[in-house]
């Protein structure tokens, strides 16, 4: 008897959706002590599968047919009260967003105790809660139990969620993208924790993810989903190294390959030099003291013409602030930003204007980076028009650029909401290129995109960089992306650049302890995706 058996599961989508079924004809099994990764891009139906097992589907998405069995018991036939009793007891779930998954008004310990109480195991809850918190490696369980969620970091909250899920030693743990919202080092700790607990207790884990690195790190078996169907299923080594289905092959081919040996570009004159840059944020009101948080501390680096420098770091490391300081979206309080010999920092708004065409930026969120009320053609042309190019010429240039970023010229007269995320990111790139910049600052340009789209946008960036001889400052949290596209990398931690050097050198011989920890945390670092067949 399998721990979990899903047979021919079909879940309907509400009428008017882009397809009839959220998932269709899904079959999979999970044995005790096994980790099954369900992997796919957004909208593939992987989360729906997980929620169907838990009986947590929203009302608009009913299970239409198929069988769901947990330990031989038919879940679909159960009354909702019976199903409730199983939830939290025999099967438990953890979610993607640890920041919002806990009740903000309730102490952490009480929330774990609640899981025990509602299943009649509330006796001695206080002691049990502390045991559980200790079991997920949280320091000082007594203090944590008394804290409210907002006091804890994302990683700590995810540990609390795991402790809560494990409270009644369930046979099945469903983890729905549990590390996606976390920084890479925290992600690795959580993955290890799940692995450790799972092997110690023999729990079966259904692990939902979009990241093949995570799959390589943790999976025993893999099921790949596309458009609501499972297209390939098998054991991890086989699927990762010898994928059969074309979609799996494409997905794996799109995974950034890591640090390839690359020739450093020939020495070139310096375009940008940043010296002693400093930025401190302060907040507080009239009736309370001010708190200062250093965002960037004495950053020094230089960029040669035609070079790409990657700035990598985790959230809060100051890498985005650094990018924004260079284009004066954030005003630093000290330092020099020497661009082609001129210090840009003291320049006024008017003094900056000539440099606006020479330094451009592309942004992270393709859904937020285009004005929803402006036609795409206008959006691309408005920069050059602002700088005095006649309107007709600017629109011609916009049309050429749309072709360059592989969009149809008809896009000119459409609004941003008619495009997908990847297409919008191309529009954003065209808008920046319309200014004919020398320096392009890219702030996490691919982190909001699915992996296959990510690969296309990265290829486009590499292409235009070569074509226009662009110098690029590339901000990313993803080390694999940095390794693929950057000549040199700078590693940031807590507002400081802790290490900088040629990409292959930093990846092969990291000197700073933080860089070493960061590299050791790349999920699936022992696995290299096979070249596309």
């Amino acid at each position, binding site marked *: 008897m399998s721990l979990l058996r899903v047979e021919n599961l079909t879940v309907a989508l509400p009428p008017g959706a882009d397809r009839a079924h959220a998932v269709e004809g899904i079959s999979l099994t999970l044995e005790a002590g096994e980790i099954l990764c369900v992997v796919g891009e957004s909208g593939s139906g992987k989360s729906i599968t997980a929620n169907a097992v838990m009986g947590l589907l929203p009302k608009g998405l009913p299970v239409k047919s198929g069988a769901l069995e947990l330990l031989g018991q038919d879940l679909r036939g159960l009354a909702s009260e019976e199903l409730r009793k199983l939830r939290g007891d025999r099967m438990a779930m953890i979610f993607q967003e640890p920041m919002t998954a806990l009740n903000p008004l309730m102490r952490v310990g009480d929330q774990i105790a609640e899981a025990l109480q509602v299943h009649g195991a509330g006796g001695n809850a206080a002691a049990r809660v502390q045991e559980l918190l200790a079991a997920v490696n949280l320091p000082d369980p007594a203090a944590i139990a008394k804290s409210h969620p907002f006091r804890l970091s994302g990683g700590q909250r995810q540990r609390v969620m795991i402790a809560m899920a494990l409270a009644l030693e369930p046979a099945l743990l469903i983890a729905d993208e549990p590390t996606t919202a976390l920084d890479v080092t925290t992600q690795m700790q959580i993955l290890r924790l799940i692995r450790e607990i799972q092997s110690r207790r023999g729990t079966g884990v259904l692990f939902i993810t979009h990241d093949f690195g995570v799959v390589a790190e943790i999976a025993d078996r893999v099921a790949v989903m596309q458009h609501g169907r499972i297209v390939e299923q098998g054991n991890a080594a086989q699927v990762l190294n010898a994928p059969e289905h074309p979609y799996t092959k494409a997905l794996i081919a799109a995974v950034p390959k890591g640090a390839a040996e690359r020739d450093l570009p020939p020495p070139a004159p310096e375009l940008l030099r940043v010296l002693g840059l400093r930025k401190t944020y302060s907040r507080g*009101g009239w009736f309370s003291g001010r708190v200062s948080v250093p965002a960037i501390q004495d950053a020094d680096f230089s960029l040669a013409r035609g070079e790409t420098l990657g700035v990598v770091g985790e959230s809060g490391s100051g890498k985005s602030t650094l990018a924004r300081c260079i284009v004066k*979206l954030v005003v630093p309080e000290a330092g020099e930003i020497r661009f082609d010999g001129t210090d840009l920092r003291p320049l006024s708004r008017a003094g900056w204007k000539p440099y606006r065409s020479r330094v*451009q930026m592309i942004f992270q969120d393709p859904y937020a980076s285009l*004005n929803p009320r402006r036609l795409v053609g206008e959006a691309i042309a408005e920069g050059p028009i602002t700088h005095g190019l006649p309107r007709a010429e600017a629109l011609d240039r916009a049309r050429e650029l749309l072709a360059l970023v592989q969009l149809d010229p008809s896009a000119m007269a459409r609004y941003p*909401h008619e495009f997908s995320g990847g297409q919008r990111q191309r529009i954003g790139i065209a808008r920046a290129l319309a200014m004919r910049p020398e320096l392009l600052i890219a702030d996490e340009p691919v982190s909001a995109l699915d992996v296959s789209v990510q690969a296309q946008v990265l290829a486009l960036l590499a292409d235009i960089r070569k074509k226009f001889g662009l110098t690029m400052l590339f901000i990313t949290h993803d080390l694999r992306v940095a390794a693929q596209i950057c000549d040199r990398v700078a590693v940031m931690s807590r507002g400081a650049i802790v290490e900088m050097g040629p990409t292959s050198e930093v990846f092969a011989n990291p000197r700073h302890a933080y860089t070493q920890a960061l590299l050791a945390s790349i999920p699936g670092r022992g696995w290299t995706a096979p070249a596309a067949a």
Partner: protein
Amino acid sequence: MADFWRRYRRNKGAVVGLVVLILVVIMAATAPWLFPGSPWDMASAPFMPPGEMGMWLGTDSLGRDVAAGIAHGARISLLVGAVSTVAALSVGVTLGAIAGYLGGFVDDVVMRFTEFFQTIPSFVLAILLVAIFTPTIGSVVAAIAIVSWPPVARVVRAEFLSLRSREFVQAAEVLGKSRIAIVLGDILPNALSPIIVLASLMVASAILLESALSFLGLGDPNLMTWGFLIGSGRSVIRLAWWMSVFPGLAIFVTVLSLNLVGEGLSDALNPRLARGRA
């Protein structure tokens, strides 16, 4: 635009509201022809119940036609509602935009000022202002505008604050656009929907506020208003219920239709064209 109407029409209440509102506007516009002469003049015997002697809605204690009073009162109510809303909007949008776009110290100062105006009992302040500056249509409009702008400022500030940090506004900065061009071209158009919806609701609440002031005897003594009619009927309600009931119904119908139009606007403007991820 066609899209907007299609979505607006889907809300049946909003369509009814719009029709009623247009009728009220027509009534106000044609009052001098429907009821020639001054609404203050005696038209019949005092305290005539509705329907008698050609007075559909009856007469008041001085024999004035209640229907004529309502028709002429509509002019004042709509005028005061519209003008004070425009005034409150211009103050609120300006302050909110400055606070939200500039942020920092300016934001702090403007928001403390706004908070202060929201804390004090606004109706009491309005009474005080009209009483001290003597009741005229000007002082009534000014008083209503002074107590109505803070919510606008808060909404506009919140919108500007969130839009200012949106990446498309940052992109506009990086393109080198001027501040005015960014505020007018990128931020304001995306903040317009809530302002429009709020404006329709503000006209409604301004009409209510005006009626309350004139009910208390703080209306312009030369102008016939709905609130005045109800106020004068209050002491004789046992004798002549119609004197208070009909003007009140007029207020109810007008304000209700404005609120329905507001909901319709909100439905039609909100499919989050402005919010991306639709």
